[in-house]
């Protein structure tokens, strides 16, 4: 889906960033079907990794887009608990309507993203450092304010049936409704990156920011927009988890940082920017979630999952490099005139 291509050929397949991640997903799926037995492939088994993939995936896509645009956002690790605490404090502790909590959490996400984006654009400090700063700042703020306001680090929240239905119920008793939000996010971002003209801007910015600006792209506004989207997505995941589990904790998000980056890279996004696809990120997220959860269905100890993920990441990076080289050198039957 990297480009709406009319005739799939070997060349057009090679040019797609998700080709490698599809192969990786197939391999991992096969592995766990063989070793995980029928439980892994069952509907319940699928739910376990789909649920993990959904909340991770909602964050991984905007993170991936930022990486395609040549930036990185690790402050999401604090934005997930900040989003869920904001929602829980406003709607649980203070008892305001749930919509107020949801909107406040999203606004906080937008604000943190705006700060990230403005700092990156104005100071030209690498976004890793900027968002490392906001990662700690937001974590401290969440902890400090939570204790100050509620006296605890964990707040319960009781959502009404509408909020539960939209954000926090299990479809068929096992599938989190978050999966549908993930699908919606994937369709939205897939349209933005691959079909809308703005996708071209994001790819160009990651390829060569100076040339992109010279070509008339408002690079600063796009950068700020993408940072706002990633922070808001993290806040969204946080608040929907709070509504799902009826409570919010101060520390429940740091794992998202690495997991999202792994999903994005396994999904074929180039670390240096300028190359990647939403389908690839979705496949990468699924791959990660399958390894993460599938291990429990195998006779192996769960500790081995990290080893598999580590190896998978390295293989993915190497494979991405190879595919990219092949894509670059691919010429359709050079006609000599």
């Amino acid at each position, binding site marked *: 889906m990297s480009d709406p291509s009319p005739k799939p050929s070997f060349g057009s397949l090679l*040019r797609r960033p998700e080709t490698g991640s599809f192969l990786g997903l197939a391999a991992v799926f096969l592995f766990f079907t063989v070793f995980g037995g029928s439980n892994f492939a069952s509907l319940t088994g699928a739910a376990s990794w789909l649920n993990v993939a959904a909340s991770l995936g909602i964050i991984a896509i905007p993170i991936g887009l930022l990486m395609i645009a040549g930036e990185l956002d690790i402050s999401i690790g604090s934005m997930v608990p900040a989003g869920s605490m904001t929602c829980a404090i406003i709607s649980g502790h203070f008892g305001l309507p749930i919509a107020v909590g949801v909107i406040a959490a999203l606004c906080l996400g937008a604000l943190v993203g705006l700060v990230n984006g403005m700092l990156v654009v104005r100071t030209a400090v690498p976004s890793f450092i900027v968002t490392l700063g906001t990662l700690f700042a937001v974590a401290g703020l969440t902890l400090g304010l939570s204790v100050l306001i509620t006296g605890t680090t964990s707040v319960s929240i009781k959502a009404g049936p509408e909020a539960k239905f939209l954000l926090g119920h299990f479809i068929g008793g096992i599938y989190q409704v978050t999966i549908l939000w993930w699908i919606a996010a994937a369709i939205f971002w897939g349209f933005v990156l691959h079909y809308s003209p703005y996708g071209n801007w994001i790819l160009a910015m990651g390829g060569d920011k100076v040339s992109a600006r010279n070509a*008339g792209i408002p690079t600063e506004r796009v950068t700020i927009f993408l940072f706002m989207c990633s922070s808001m997505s993290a806040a969204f995941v946080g608040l929907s988890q709070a509504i799902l589990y009826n409570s919010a904790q101060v520390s429940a998000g740091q794992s998202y940082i690495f997991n999202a980056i792994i999903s994005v890279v396994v999904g074929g996004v*180039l670390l240096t920017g300028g190359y990647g696809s939403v389908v690839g990120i979705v496949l990468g997220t699924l791959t990660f979630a399958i390894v993460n959860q599938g291990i429990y269905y195998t006779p192996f100890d769960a500790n081995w999952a990290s080893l598999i993920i580590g190896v998978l990441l390295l293989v993915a990076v190497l494979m991405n490099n190879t595919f990219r080289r092949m894509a670059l050198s691919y010429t359709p039957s050079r006609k000599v005139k």
Partner: protein
Amino acid sequence: MPTPLLTLQGINKSFGPIDVLHDINLEVYPGEVLCLLGDNGAGKSTLIRLLSGVHKPTSGTITLAGKPAAFASPRDASNAGIATVHQFGGTFPLMSIGRSFFVGEEPKKGWGPFKTFDRKTANDIAVKAVRDLGITRITDGDRLVGGLSGGERQALAIARAVHFGASVLILDEPTAALGVKEAAHVLRIVLQARQKGIAVIFITHNVVHALTVGDHFAVLIKGAKAADFRKGDKTREEITDLMAGGEQMAELEAEIKSYMSSHPG
């Protein structure tokens, strides 16, 4: 006397404490090629960056078609019909030819918020534009730019500027990376643009290329305009000396010769 399309008056540019351009006055006429010449670091690229909206002048005014032009961004300049090929870059290695060509000016199809990037149109126009420049090896707009040779990428950047340069076309050392044949194609394109009534600003270090296309020459030395003359006003030797920043090239060449003869092998 024709009226100038683009006029620069008293342009100064400094980056913090570094003064790069001093009091530049220049007129660019439609249907003419202005060759901007000068040594490395003379300020040529900086001057054209002011015209393409990348930088703003510290002081002085730019007038386009009689109206003052203060470009806040490259987008403003391109909306005013000024297209630029910057010295380095301009293409995106991991994007397809079609997408790279239309960065920032994407052709769209469809309706309302669902407008999509028109890949087919983009590819067709990009491939045709590059082939018009003489790069006939390119047939597939889906190919990635990074797979092209340096000269082919340069041709792609020039083709883009020619396509979007409605009134002013600025080329910063467009022939530097090109082979003899491709350079000739670029010179032909420059002359074609000139014939269409476009004002062309052409930066080069190559005397032959400058003399082939230039109607009007401006020489920068250390950020100041050192000479401004029309075709035929100066001899080739005088132009060469000016391009070398005012050094006597003949003396330099004599020195090289004596060095070569005193250090045989």
